[in-house]
């Protein structure tokens, strides 16, 4: 789990354009409240697909699924990434 979350955090750091340091946020902290804009969230999704070599389902491509490190980890698990 830790490895997956670390990689998620790396992607968010690079593409999420947060207004705070991702290291200062808990795994369940709201990324949008931390300044992630819609456009940046799409870049996070694309980078996650690339980093984990998976494709999200349409049913996962919505704001709430990319709300926190935890919710992203859950979505990745659903598409077959081993925690």
């Amino acid at each position, binding site marked *: 789990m830790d490895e997956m979350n670390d990689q998620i955090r790396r992607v968010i750091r690079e593409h999420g354009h947060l207004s705070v340091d991702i290291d200062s946020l808990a795994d369940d902290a709201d990324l949008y409240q931390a*300044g992630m804009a819609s456009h940046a969230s799409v870049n996070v999704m694309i980078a996650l697909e690339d980093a984990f070599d998976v494709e999200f389902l349409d049913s996962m491509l919505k704001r709430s699924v990319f709300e926190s490190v935890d919710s992203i980890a859950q979505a990745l698990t659903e598409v077959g990434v081993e925690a």
Partner: protein
Amino acid sequence: MTITAGTDAGLVAVARRIADEVAAPNAAEVDKEARFPAETVAALREERLLSALVPVELGGAGASLETIAQVCFELGRRCGASGMVFAMHQIQVACMVDHRGAGAPWFDDYLREVVAEQRLIASITSEVGTGGDMGKSVAAVSEPDAEGRATFEKQAPTVSYGPHADAFLTTVRRAPDAEPGDQVAVLTRREQMEMEPQGTWDPLGMRGTCSPGFVAKAAFAVEQILPVPFSTISAETMTPVSHILWSHVWLGIATDAFDRARAFVKAAAKRKPGEPLPAAIRLSELMSELSLLRAEVGLALREYCDLHAGDRAKLAEMATILRFNNLKIAASEQAPKVCQEALGVCGIVGYKNDTPFSVGRHLRDAMSARLMVANERIHATDASLLLIAKEV
């Protein structure tokens, strides 16, 4: 023309009568003087149509979105501005009905008041500094005081029927330190607001919407904040419902432009029976353009109603957002195109403002469609979503 099933024929018949008997005879003056279509709104109030969307358990008619869309079409056909005022009001009501949340008695009470007093609700979503990007705000809700009262101040560039509304649904940041995209929607009564007018309203079209700028200051109770994030309200209700109801108004405008072109061709055919009539061919071409618009608008309405009644979570998915953004772009480009082609059919009598075949107002009204949230902005959003969405 009936756009969909699932409509309340009685309510639509009432709306059609108001459109024909009240909106139509005043449309030219409303346009010329850029004045509010007060008599149409009074007639809608009289028939309790302002609360049609309010659920039966709160005293409303519990009308379907299909019915409301058909009313937008009927009004838009006779007076684009009247149709747009009605559409915008219903969008605010739909947001409250969908997102008032369980155990939010303030909004239940307010919706009862919409029924009893036929309140007219305006919206303050756009803002100086963010333009048409509804997903960001500059203004913020202040820190609530000990009694749970808060304030905001928002620079609003365009507030339709601002001087005539009883209440306003305004987007603002959730708190003074919240990010631009961390928004809520607040419903405030006119008495709770100080509206300082900014500039004038002398636009190309949609003149009767009376939409000048304001500095809007409000003091309110925190219960008046809708209890879900604006991002949810926007994705599930405000954006798709806006695109659906606006596009029904635009379809109404385009349909009347087509009807006028058709009346022109028929009159010409009567004058010279049997003679070749080039305008008749153009009319036939125009009909196929109108039918494309009608198909897109009608289909989008059905798809939304199916999702809303069934799998509402799907409304937040990117593929769905793309779908209803596409409706807006397609309808806002096709409606003025139909009006312009109708002008081509009617010629100079269509160009003049005072003939039975005038379509100048239709064309000017329809041209507002592409900038009610700039199509360029929607394309930019779609371009980004298309990079990641799967089935679209």
